[in-house]
């Protein structure tokens, strides 16, 4: 699997996780659990934007990755 494919797969998983946590917040969650879920959601969103940015960088340098000069 190419680097970009692997990263996109991780991005998909992050998106799924984000949707799950948003749903969990919508549902009647115990009040004391909400801060933990909100903080997890923030971390997931941070990871998502960081990984999206990384994918952009990798895509820009794609020819070098294809030649095996970068990993």
């Amino acid at each position, binding site marked *: 699997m190419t680097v970009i494919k*692997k*990263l*996109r797969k*991780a*991005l*998909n*998983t*992050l*998106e*799924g*996780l984000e*949707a*799950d*946590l948003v*749903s*969990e917040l*919508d*549902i009647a969650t115990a009040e*004391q*659990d909400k801060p*933990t*879920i909100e*903080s*997890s959601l923030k*971390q*997931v969103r*941070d*990871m998502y934007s*960081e*990984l*999206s940015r*990384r*994918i952009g960088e990798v895509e820009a340098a794609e020819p070098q990755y294809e030649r095996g000069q*970068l*990993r």
Partner: protein
Amino acid sequence: MNYLEAVFNGNPNLGPFALVLRGLLAYIVLNVLVRLMGQREVQQLTAVDFVVGITIGSIFAAALADPKTAFWPAIIATSTIVGVKSLVAFLGLKNQRFARLASGEPITLIKDGKVQEAAMRKGRVTMDSLMEQLRKRKAFNLADVEFAVLEPSGSVTVMKKREHQPVTKKDLHVGLGCSWYPAFLVKEGQILHDNLREVGLSEAWLQNQLGSMGVTDLDEVFVAQLSTTGSLYVDTYEDEGPMKKSIAKDLVLSKAQKLSGDFALYAEGTYDPEAKAMYERMSRQARHVYTSLAHIWADKVD
């Protein structure tokens, strides 16, 4: 016995009960014949399917409405038509050329944005009817169309030029998240064990999810469905209040755990120190998400 013979052979003195009996028999025979012909939507019917359908209907209509007419020839005639049609379909599956001969083949009316006049003549399609079909598929300008194909069913399939195609999630590099088979897990208080096995979940998991939504008795549940995102939607017999919904917490945890492992692997696999640091940080973050959620859901997962 004589009465049944009269029902099948026809008799001018047949009463209404005999016609009811014929109607019942015709319904059963038609059901069997339609099933033998295979399941298709009405829009997918080819011209041959359409003619066969009308012929069968006409034969039965004549036999049903007139007590003097014998009923059995209608059954034999329609069974023969369906038999031949099934045979043709079977042979078509074995031989592509035969299938094209029997059902017709698609005709490309517009290719690479250019109208194919010879193909239009072959398909007996006028420019007006082609434009009508294109408009039905929201292609108002010929210039927007890359391909248009006249299908054997008579409908026209249209592929617009790339610049006129709607934007997809893939174009935007937007992920789709995990996808689950949307299976019903409970119907009218009964657990559907086959579906539960198919999605790889246990009865204990289901009971746990229901318990977390305050559903203690399966008899309270009208339906419970696992959505494509892995959430469980539960509709109880109690119609007051919102529909209950729960996310599959163990699946959420496994996603976080997997991400942590994947990022650690990416960190090991890169030579770029900046990327390495980023993947290591993300692996720790995903691990932290896992442990935090596992802590608050400790009593809610298997």
